[in-house]
């Protein structure tokens, strides 16, 4: 029941996943993740989820991991294991735990018995997903919420990285111009503490 | 009228907090008014049963009523509380805010004795803690933090089992409501009774205070304001005997019988233990704290004997000790104002300079050690008569404390007043203190020489308790 293509995909999936967690160069690991995502996208196609596959390629492989790469470069954090290792025995625990987890999950998965007559997926095309996604009875509000979430995330990312500029930009011009370290409250700087 | 008497102090306390400018005069006036109210209630009391009863549904669904009323014991203790608060407010040199707390606590204490609904009793029982803690917090000594912890922990740890017991006696017995009459009509039985009583026991033993749960008391008194006002209120807050008598025993008589032997032993042992130990107390407040533990041990012995005489004696001793112990605390507060220290060790020989103070101290001390003719004795005697019928050996053990009492009291008294003066000259009593002394001594003598005035109202209660236990006359 396992065809050759499927076996290949499985092999690729596991190999690339292992590469993600084991490669010492962070850039290589990110690239391995891209590979993994692409394989997954292929699997999606095979599983009649074509729209999802496309989004997977564009957003995940294309956008997200590239963002990762970008940050790795920005922080010059290509080498993976720098700095102290406080928990040297943890890999063993992790390996055992992962093995146990995998075993258990596989055990559960194998017990799953699919219904005899599965419904039609319509190839997972946008035509099939669209009505579900925009149906107010079904997922519409979740969609809107996710949109809002993305917006907030964008703002948050900017604020996190550049808090001072944001403060300066959004302060009403009537206020005196901020100087000095940003984390001091306003009153203290102008008041008695400075006089001393 | 009873509502007025109950809530007036709280109201006055709040007013005083908002307008501290009203000062001591205002506090004294309201205390006088409270005392007048309770005297009126005393005069009008029909002689038996719960008088001035009033009940309004509060949480009808849960069976909670705002129900108040006074029986003989409640009346006696109302008088004691109002008198002591008046004396304290009159005498103690404390900030106005302190007086406000005092008045607020007064309402809590009065509520404890007047509540006829178990939930409201619980409310007042706990609410009184707040002003006590505030006084300790704002006006306590340098190590007050520990004292506060100890006090609050003992009290609160006691309260939670009690809360469980409160619910147990209502819901496990199938009573209609939390009203005393409903609860007493259906005493809790079975194994639940043992545990419910234990719940009450822990809370009330802390407040009796019963050995070994008295351990919070010495540091509480040591750290409180030297004026003694907070100590006096703390003394009034020792409502354990009353609570056992009014609530725990009638509501869970079966549970009480389970624990009776142990309780008798603890009471008797504690009485002797504390009295003995008081002998080496390093300061007057510690001494008085242990003396209080000892007296309450005696009272508890009487009550736990389950005899009418014992119960009457216990309540009488409780009321009397509220007055004399509180007065004693206020008295040593005045001594402190003169000498700046309360240690027992150095010889001060104050009698030569302050003979008035000496005489007052003598009266208080003698009342405290149960000299016949003063207020401590009738209660002790009745306790003895009741307890001896039930547990002669334990009674012997407990009453060894009368010897120890003479030893600790007279020894400390001798150092403070007698022998050659080794301290600077101090002034004798001023007019304010003379008034205090007059009233106090008058009450001590009245309670000692004509106990009938109060025991007449306690007797029916004692008989009812005796009847609960198979009614030996």
């Amino acid at each position, binding site marked *: 029941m396992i065809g050759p293509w499927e076996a290949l995909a499985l092999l690729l999936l596991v190999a690339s996943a292992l590469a993600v967690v084991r490669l010492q160069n962070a850039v290589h690991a990110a690239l391995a993740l891209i590979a993994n995502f692409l394989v997954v996208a292929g699997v999606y196609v095979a599983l009649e989820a074509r729209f999802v596959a496309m989004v997977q390629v564009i957003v995940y492989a294309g956008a997200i991991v590239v963002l990762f790469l970008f940050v790795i470069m920005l922080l010059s954090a290509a080498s993976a294991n720098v700095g102290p290792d406080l*928990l040297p025995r*943890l890999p063993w*625990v992790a390996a055992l*735990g992962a093995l146990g*987890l995998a075993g*258990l*999950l596989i*055990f*559960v998965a194998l017990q799953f018995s699919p219904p005899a007559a599965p419904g039609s997926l319509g190839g997972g095309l946008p035509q099939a997903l669209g009505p579900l996604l925009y149906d107010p009875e079904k997922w519409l509000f979740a969609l809107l919420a996710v949109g809002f979430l993305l917006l907030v995330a964008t703002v948050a990312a900017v604020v996190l990285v550049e808090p001072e500029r944001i403060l300066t930009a959004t302060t009403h011009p009537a206020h005196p111009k901020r100087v000095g370290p940003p984390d001091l409250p306003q009153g203290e700087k102008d008041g008695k503490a400075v006089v001393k | 009228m009873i509502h007025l008497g109950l809530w007036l102090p709280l109201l006055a306390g709040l007013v005083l907090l908002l307008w501290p400018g009203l000062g001591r005069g205002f506090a004294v006036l309201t205390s006088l008014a409270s005392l007048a109210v309770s005297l009126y209630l005393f005069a009008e009391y029909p002689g038996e049963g719960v008088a001035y009863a009033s009940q309004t549904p509060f949480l009808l669904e849960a069976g909670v009523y705002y129900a108040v009323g006074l029986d003989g014991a409640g009346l006696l203790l109302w008088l004691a509380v109002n008198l002591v608060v008046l004396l304290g407010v009159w005498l103690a040199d404390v900030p106005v805010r302190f007086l406000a707390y005092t008045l607020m606590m007064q309402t809590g204490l009065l509520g404890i004795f007047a509540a006829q609904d178990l939930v409201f009793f619980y409310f007042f029982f706990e609410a009184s803690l707040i002003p006590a803690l505030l006084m300790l917090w704002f006006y306590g000594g340098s190590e007050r933090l520990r004292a506060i912890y*100890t006090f609050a*922990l003992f009290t609160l740890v006691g309260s939670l089992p009690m809360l469980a017991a409160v619910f147990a006696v209502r819901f496990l017995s199938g009573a209609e409501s939390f009203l005393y009459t409903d609860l007493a009509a259906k005493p809790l039985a079975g194994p639940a009774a043992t545990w419910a009583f234990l719940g009450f026991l822990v809370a009330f033993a802390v407040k009796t205070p019963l050995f070994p749960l008295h*351990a919070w008391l*010495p*540091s509480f008194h040591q750290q409180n304001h030297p004026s003694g006002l907070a100590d006096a209120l703390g003394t009034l807050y020792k409502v354990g005997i009353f609570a056992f008598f009014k609530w725990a025993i009638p509501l869970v008589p079966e549970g009480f019988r389970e624990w009776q032997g142990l309780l008798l032993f603890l009471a008797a042992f504690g009485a002797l*233990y504390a009295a*003995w*130990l*008081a*002998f*080496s107390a390093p300061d007057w407040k510690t001494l008085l704290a242990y003396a209080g533990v000892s007296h309450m041990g005696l009272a508890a012995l009487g009550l736990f004997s389950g005899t*009418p*005489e014992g119960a*009457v004696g216990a309540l009488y001793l409780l009321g009397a000790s509220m007055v004399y112990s509180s007065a004693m605390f206020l008295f040593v507060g005045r001594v402190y104002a003169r000498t700046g220290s309360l240690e027992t060790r150095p010889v001060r*020989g104050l*009698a*030569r300079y302050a003979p008035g103070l000496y*005489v007052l101290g003598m009266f208080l001390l*003698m009342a405290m050690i149960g*000299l*016949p*003719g003063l207020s401590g*004795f*009738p209660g002790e*005697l*009745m306790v*003895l*008569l009741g307890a*001896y*019928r039930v547990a*002669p050996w334990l*009674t012997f053990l407990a*009453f*060894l404390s*009368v*010897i120890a009492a*003479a*030893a600790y009291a*007279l020894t400390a008294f*001798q150092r403070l007043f*007698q*022998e*050659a003066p080794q301290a600077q000259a101090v002034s004798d009593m001023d007019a304010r203190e003379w008034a205090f002394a007059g009233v106090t001594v008058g009450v001590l003598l009245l309670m000692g020489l004509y*106990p*009938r005035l109060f*025991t*007449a109202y*306690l*007797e029916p209660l*004692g008989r009812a308790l005796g009847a609960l236990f198979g009614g030996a*006359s």
Partner: protein
Amino acid sequence: MQETLLLPLVVGLPLLGFALLGLWGRRFGEPASGWVASLLVLASFLLGFYLLLQGGARWTLAEWLPGIPFSLRLDNLSGVMLMVVTGVGFLIHVWAIGYMHADPGYSRFFSYFNLFIAAMLLLVLGDSLPVVFIGWEGVGLASYLLIGFWYTERVNADSARKAFIVNRIGDLGFLLGMGLLWSMFGTLSISELAHKVEEGGYSFASLTLAGFFLLVGAIGKSAQVPLMVWLPDAMAGPTPVSALIHAATMVTAGVYLLVRHAFLLHADPFLSGLIVAVGLLTAIYGALCSLGQWDIKRIVAYTTLSQLGFMFVAVGVGAYWVAIFHIVTHAFFKALMFMTSGSVIHALGGEQDVRRMGGMRKYLPVTHLHGLVATAASGGLIPLAGFWSKDAILAYSFGYGPWLWALMVIASVLAALYSIRWYVLVFWGEYRGKEHPHESPAVMLWPNHILMGGAMGVGFIGLPYVIDYENFLEPFLVRAIGDFPHEKLPVLTEWVLIVLSATVAVLALLWGFRFFQQPMPDWYVRFQSAALQGFYVDAIYNALLVNPAKVLAGLLLGGDRGLLAGFGGLGGLVGGLGNLLARLETGALRFYLAGLLVALVLLLAWGVLR
């Protein structure tokens, strides 16, 4: 016996004096406050006498405490005591007006004195045990206040405290006795108790125990062995106090209590034996100690102890009226002896050591006369008062057992010796001090004259039956105590005993008179040094009881703090557990995540394998 409000007034008059002098004593000043106090006692005496002539009186306040009335009863027994207390009390009050002259606490003294009289009257008149107990502890309080009258001296304050505490041991016995009697009979009224005891229907052992408890009380108050240690120290108080409280009245309260409860004791051989033993021991112990003292007041104090022992023996052998008889005669001659000592002390400006006295018969002739009579009466010289009461005790002892009689004769020989020793050391020989002695003022002499008359004549109210003169006292008292019949000794035996005891006393007095004027032989000096210390009883008590008790108190205090720490330990346990758990909070992200993973695996495994 009539109900009358005059009876509480008998108690109330001295009490009024206490209140008046206590509050406004300084306004009265000296000597007015002394006279006020004395006259109030006299009024009390007269009123009591009047009521006694009316055939007694009672007064009851039905419900004083639940089931306990406040009742007073004046019957023949309490009447005799009342006469002694107020009569002798009045004389000593008057005497004190002179003795306390110029003391800064003059009015305070008389206020306490009146308090004592009031409490003592309550003790005597009370018909309900709690009322008696009020008086019982009241006299203890008065005694405490008066022993420590000059409280700025540490010794005095200590002695006062000691007296009170030791008395409290006895009081505990009294209290427990009340508890037991209440649980047996459900009443504490003495007259009702007497009826109920007659009716029977109780456990005899309990009755013995009740009697024992009361005996403990009596032992404490009357300073019998083993609770006698407070009485010699009580001499720290002013001399009138010693005369009134620690000789004539208060210390006899224990005897009175036992006589009052004769109905409990008379049928109980165990208790009787115990009382006899206690009394005999005390009589001999007191006598021996007295022979070794140098302080004039301690000499007399120990003689009191010895005489109280005689009274206990009388109670023990069942001669209740004799015990009261001896109380009466003793009150006279012992008060006289104390006040004579007081006069001497007064004359010498406060000197109390007999080694710096002597020869007083030349300087103080009147006081010497008083002393002579007191000595003779105390030594049992026929026909003075002391002889008749002591002889009666001896006679009854013979009825109890000739061996007891023999021992009592020894005790009375010792009594004669200590009396004459006191007399010789004070009044004979050469004056060994420096002060210039002066005779006392009239206000101190007249009470002594009267007491002297009493010490000589009061014995004739209770002559033995063999003498053909009406015994007034016995039938009078028996009406109140109850008649507990004794076999009367044969006339011949009685006469022989009388002659023997009279002869022995005279011989002892004569021998002592010569012996104590000579220098002391060695054996006597050795004996004296032990007797001076009261045969080390105090030291033994301190080592065995008092000090361990004090140390234990300190240990308990530490233990109590430990108790709190123990409760703190409970809290610490929780805190410790918290600390232990807090160590899991390493802050290391991967550590937490590992926990998460392990937990996830475990949960899954549980879900899968369940």
